[in-house]
């Protein structure tokens, strides 16, 4: 016999959820799960590049990070488009010699930050924002109508300004992507020592990263569990409460865990003093890399003057 409640039409089931057109509209649960999965996928798929035996992978991480930061500052100082283009070509060739597929590298760099920067820089090409010599007049009105500007044109200053801006962003992002792709994450944090960051923080960076991966798993499971138990739509307020309780849950869990981890560390001999092992060795490739970097720095300086 079918119970009465199964025959009735439940009130709070939203049938719109089962509408194939509307189902595409993702809710906050799907969005969160997707973002987490994307982050994990990206991380794991990129980690394999650091294990190849290309050029940058063999350079000492401390030397690599120091030269990269030097170049980042250099790029932020330069005013010339030619230099930025030269550096962009250099990052492309370095990626090639580091056995990173150029198609993957270009996609990885341009997608999101430089592309997004390009879109936001578009309006700055016009005379309304950057006045100057006009390159291309879109329209010119004889009279000014109350809110329409009298003239709309792309200016030389605006155009080159946007070009320099986007190139600078793209070159910087390329540098950072090269650095992350070719360095194992624990080597990367260890290499931060060159900036005189205390050993305690080097340890904290490494542990943070490990716990981020762990929390991602936990949060993903919580969201999947919630999603699989949901029938129909809940009110915004209820969802907000649920999210807040999950954040609080993660906080409590992390607080308890930090105590446990501390006790575990103490029982293994941790006294609060941190020393990271240093295996600083300079190989032939490092000497080559440094001299190459210095040569490029010098040449670029010569070009700027």
């Amino acid at each position, binding site marked *: 016999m079918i119970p009465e409640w199964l025959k009735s039409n439940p009130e709070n089931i939203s049938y719109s959820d089962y509408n194939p057109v509307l189902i595409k*509209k993702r*809710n*906050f649960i799907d*969005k*969160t799960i997707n973002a*987490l999965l994307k982050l994990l996928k990206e991380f794991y798929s990129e980690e394999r590049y650091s294990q190849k035996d290309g050029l940058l992978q063999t350079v000492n991480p401390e030397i690599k990070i120091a030269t990269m930061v030097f170049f*980042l*500052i250099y*790029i*932020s100082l330069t*005013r010339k488009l030619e230099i930025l283009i030269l550096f962009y070509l250099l990052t492309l060739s370095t990626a090639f010699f580091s056995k990173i597929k150029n198609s993957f590298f270009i996609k990885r760099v341009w997608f999101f*930050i430089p592309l997004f920067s390009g879109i936001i*820089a578009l309006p*700055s090409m016009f005379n309304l*924002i*950057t006045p*100057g*010599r006009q390159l291309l007049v879109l329209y010119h009105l004889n009279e000014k109508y109350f809110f329409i500007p009298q003239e709309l044109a792309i200016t*030389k*200053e*605006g155009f080159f*300004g946007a070009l*320099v*801006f986007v190139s*600078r*962003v*793209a070159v*910087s*992002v390329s540098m*950072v992507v090269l650095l*992350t792709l070719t360095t194992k994450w624990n080597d990367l944090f260890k290499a931060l020592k060159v900036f005189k960051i205390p050993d305690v923080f080097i*340890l*904290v*960076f*490494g*542990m*943070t*990263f490990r*716990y*981020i991966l762990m*929390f*991602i798993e936990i*949060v993903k499971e919580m969201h999947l569990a919630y999603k699989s138990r949901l029938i129909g739509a809940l009110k915004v307020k209820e*969802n907000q409460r649920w*999210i*807040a*309780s999950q*954040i*609080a849950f*993660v*906080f409590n869990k992390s*607080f308890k*865990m*930090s*105590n446990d*981890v*501390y006790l575990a*560390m103490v029982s293994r001999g941790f*006294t609060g003093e*941190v020393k990271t092992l240093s295996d600083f060795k300079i190989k032939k490739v490092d000497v080559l890399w440094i001299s190459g970097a210095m040569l490029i720095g010098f040449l670029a300086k010569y070009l700027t003057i």
Partner: protein
Amino acid sequence: MHIPDGYLSPQTYGPLFAIMIPVWGIASRFVKKTLKASQVPLLAIGSAFSFIIMMFNIPIPGGTTGHAVGGVLVAVLLGPWTAVIVISVALIVQAFLFGDGGITAIGANCFNMAFVMPFVGYFIYRIISKNADPLSRRHWIGASVGGYIALNIAALLTSVELGLQPLIAQTASGQPLYAPFPLKIAVPAIMIEHLFLFGFVEAVATGLVVAYLQKTDNLLSKNFERIKLFV
């Protein structure tokens, strides 16, 4: 609100780094004194927590979602000086490993989100919740108001830093070199979405989490002891 590389001129990110270096120094001395040896796992797990807060999508009426920064929440839960370190570590890990926020802009991003934001929010929270008993509504209201105001101040700083670029660095002919929009465009463009959208997301997230911690079992009193411990 994460500023990428190439948006700020060296004249901007340099001084902000110069401000942050002593702030980090003071914060780590504070944390060392109050947390002693257990600081390492707490800082690491706290940083992972503050990274993860940004992954939670929070639904708001109208079908949109946004994520919170969590700067004020971390400050209310762990104290403002611990928050400085914890959020900075999260931002640095983001910049180096996930390409979110620039490496040259670490100083600026930490100044906005790891220094000003937790301190402003915490200050407002303390004023509103002063002498309130642990179950009082003033705690979550304070945290919520603190979250809203602090997020908007952080956004305002970000927009001013970006909007100053055409003033600071231009070629002789007036060609912009970094972020191209002047203050009168950058400030409203960034502030409108924070005043009307992300500010409320931050307020909802911060307030509800504090309210939840107040409601659930004896966590509350422990929590407030925790806070006293870390301030």
